[in-house]
């Protein structure tokens, strides 16, 4: 599963970690995040994220 980076604040969504503060379990792919999920660090939507090349 790919990591995604927020283009506004550089937060990296790591599917292995999820987003525990917002009830996103480890193992959740970026694509599976709910549409209204927002960046936990700066609040922008999923459309502001870009996949990170590994």
């Amino acid at each position, binding site marked *: 599963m790919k990591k995604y980076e927020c283009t*506004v*604040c*550089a*937060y990296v969504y790591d599917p292995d970690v999820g987003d525990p*503060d917002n009830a996103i379990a480890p193992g959740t792919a970026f694509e599976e995040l709910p549409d209204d999920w927002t960046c*936990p*660090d*700066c609040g922008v939507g999923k459309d502001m994220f870009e996949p990170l090349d590994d």
Partner: protein
Amino acid sequence: MHATLAEGVNWVGIIDWTVRDFHGYETRRGSTYNSYLVQGEKTALIDAVKAPFADTLLGNIDETVGLGSVDYVVANHAEPDHSGSLAAVMAACPKATLVTNEKCAEILEGYYGAREWPTHIVTTGDSLDLGGRTLSFVQVPMVHWPDSMVTYCPEEHILFSNDAFGQHLASSGRFDDELDLSVVMDEAKTYYANIVMLYGRPIARALEAVGGLQIAMIAPAHGVIWREHVAEILDAYNDWVRCRPRARLLVIYESMWGSTDAMAHEILAGALGHGAEIELLEVGSTGRTRIATEVLDAAVLAVGSPTLNMTLMPEVAGVLTYLKGLAPRNKAGLAFGSYGWAPSGPKEVHAALEGMGVEMLGEPLTARWRPDDEVRARCREAGRMMAERAVRAAAEGHLYPV
């Protein structure tokens, strides 16, 4: 007016003695907007000030190096407290090139429109050779906005940290050793809690990014310059980003006819003597700036509101909304309050605390009309339980992962 950090490195900022409201943050000790001049063979100004102080800034620059000799104007952050006078500076310094990052340039254009300023875009790892002195740049997004950046002068080991490590503190001394350290630390904590508490993770990343630098001085954009107590403020930030809990219980409440006030005092009475530090904070008389500051390192929060108009009291709702945005982590809590026929006030407090990730220690403590002996006993018992919990949390030292 100017003050010298090192030979050829000068503070040329503004002391705002009278400001008491900084977008809702009660700046009880005023503030400063710090600009710095760094001279090599070329001269750079680091950050500007709030718009109303443009003329004073220009006067300070002129007196120190002469307006005509400014080659670069570094914009670390586009918020108007640092950029409001940028247009005046660019107009008054004919050969100046604006040095900033892409995001900051974007926001500056959003605020001030497209300008013809000669601009040099930098990013993390870039540096600017001033001839004998260097400025290098590290972007630190969300400390305080997406554009935030810090500037480092390796020859002098000075970190120009912009909002990070700042304090809203007007003082005659420009350095941390020129006033009472407890005042400086208190204002640094108030600033952290009210401006950047929610950005713990990005700040932790920024601390890591500058962690490898040798730092003799931290020159922030607000308040005094750290030179004697650099280690203390870095240690404090390392605790704050992880919300290290202290053995403290806050009883935060508002009352209508004294019942919720009586419950708050019973909680206090029950909590005393169990090793925790307790503070009773009535919302209306305390204000949200102080409350947010106390919340930063308190392990446990008891928050009380009676039912008013079938909901919680607006003063308490305001504080809870403010805290929700600031996102305090690593807390336990309990709601309490009185009601007549519908306990919606305390229930909504409970839901709000739970919604911001506070670990709830039980159902809301409620009293119908007046707390009777039984309710009073339950309040004292809850106070004892919360005090013990606070002591345990501090001892265990569980940190919020960043």
